[in-house]
């Protein structure tokens, strides 16, 4: 327990000490949130209706999918995992603790956004704040799992950027944060169900705002939770201590299994 607490405290402080991590955890989401609040609400006043969940989910995606994998891959490349291994740091701690602290930072940023948006930019406040908090935590866990998975399968830091952007960019475009899913063309709408942001937005709109959704909101919430469990399990299974000593237990393509819960919702839609 002391080891967990010490490791957690170190990783959490690193999220504030390291300028790159501070940028991606707080400054980037805050800047984007400010721009969207100042500009987007003027261009498209309807955006104010979903601004709270969409900006909170954006903060989560930025921290977990864009921000988290890079430092983990850099640490592996720099031989830091070797130092950890010889000192008895278990693989699961190496993955789960940074994921938890990143999720913690993302939750702080998301909470600040959710609380300030109605006051600063006239964003619509949720009917059920507790439900919004639950959805945000589930979304953070799901995205954190995917971030952990990217950090495990990416060969190097360049590949990490590619994998992260492969999730991040579609999430921005068709993940329900900028454009509501029900406005997407029918040919693209099923693809959006493969993204955690779509389910986070669907769950938030249904459970926290009591609005209609294209999928049952509880199903979207369940999918987020299921995907987080599958992602963390797969990330732990596929974990590799050392770039030089590439003895991996499974093929990186196994990571696609993390999308099974999302894919099943295409059938349900």
């Amino acid at each position, binding site marked *: 327990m002391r080891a967990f607490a010490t*490791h957690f405290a170190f990783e959490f402080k690193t999220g504030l000490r*390291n300028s790159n991590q501070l940028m991606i955890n707080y400054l980037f989401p805050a800047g984007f949130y400010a721009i969207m609040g100042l500009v987007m609400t003027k261009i498209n006043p309807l955006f104010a209706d979903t601004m709270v969940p969409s900006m909170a989910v954006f903060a989560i995606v930025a921290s977990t999918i864009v921000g988290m994998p890079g430092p983990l891959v850099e640490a592996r490349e720099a*031989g830091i995992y070797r130092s950890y291994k010889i*000192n008895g740091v278990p693989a699961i701690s190496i993955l789960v603790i940074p994921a938890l602290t990143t999720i913690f930072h993302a939750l702080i940023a998301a909470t600040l956004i959710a609380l300030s948006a109605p006051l600063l930019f006239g964003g619509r406040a949720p009917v059920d704040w507790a439900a919004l908090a639950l959805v945000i935590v589930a979304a953070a866990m799901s995205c954190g799992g995917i971030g952990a998975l990217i950090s495990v399968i990416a060969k190097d830091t360049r590949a990490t950027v590619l994998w992260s952007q492969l999730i991040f960019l579609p999430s921005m475009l068709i993940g329900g944060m900028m454009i509501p899913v029900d406005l997407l063309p029918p040919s693209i709408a099923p693809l959006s169900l493969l993204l955690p942001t779509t389910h986070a937005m669907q769950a938030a709109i249904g459970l926290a705002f009591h609005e209609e959704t294209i999928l049952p909101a509880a199903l979207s919430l369940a999918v987020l939770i299921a995907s987080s469990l599958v992602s963390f399990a797969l990330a732990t299974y596929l974990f590799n201590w050392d770039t030089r000593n590439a003895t991996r237990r499974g093929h990186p393509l196994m990571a696609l299994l993390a999308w099974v819960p999302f894919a099943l919702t295409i059938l349900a839609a």
Partner: protein
Amino acid sequence: MTPMKHAVRVSSFRKSYGGVAAVDGISFDVQMGEIFGLLGPNGAGKTTTLECLEGIRRPDAGSLQVLGVDPARDPRALRHVLGIQLQASGLPADMLVAEAMRFFCAYRGVEPRDDLLERFGLGEKRQSPYRQLSTGQQRRLALALAVAPGPKVIILDEPTAGLDVATRAELHTMMAELKQAGTTILLATHDMAEAEKLADRVAILLKGKIVAIGSPQQLTATGSGLTKISVRTEMGVGDLTEAGLPSAFRLMFKDEYAVIYSEDPGATIVALIKHIEAKKDKLVDLRVERPSLEERFLEITNLGGQA
């Protein structure tokens, strides 16, 4: 219960990468309390051997034990008896020195040893991040972290590579102190002077095989047996071919010195002094050196392990 005699036992150990044998059936023991040097050129198999002993890699065949613990089968037990300083490793750039001590001691289940930070000259760097440490300070921190849980055996992989003379001397002192405290040290190094100074016994690895093993004195004694005699006189040594030096082999001149390699240094020196007196010259300096471990190492490696 009789005390354990061997701290490390390696028997018929083999490890290959892609069909190429990195280590080809080597065996050696490290006795309790000794400093054992593992020497060899790049690619000889030193780091592979150490990484299998550290539990980082699994051997293909043979048996490895550290205080009776099989590193591949029981990595958890290994952490209680073995401290490791890796050749290629690192710590998170933003981790503070004191934080590193707390972090790893927490995982090793021991109280942080802040006294070691002082002892290893890192007291003033306690609140400095790892990225701000010099190479020497990073090595000292790695050694402090390896020593902190009080392991009975320590593996040091190239601990002084790339360090300046003063820092290297400091680390040598620390290693000597660890040995005095009863710690067994397995030391892989390219620095022959370091091995000669610190190690009780050394093994020379070449192409995955041990080609020589013994104390540095034993290894140097089993070489060509030539002793190096360097001499300088007031008038200049000049041509020594007419001196008829017995048992002398090679003869060369370097920085006003005549350098002679002899199988029988006593007879050669007596003849040399007689020759200088006969020429009415005066001896300024005379040095007699046995072959160094480095010379013996080069001799062995140049002959592909056949020396």
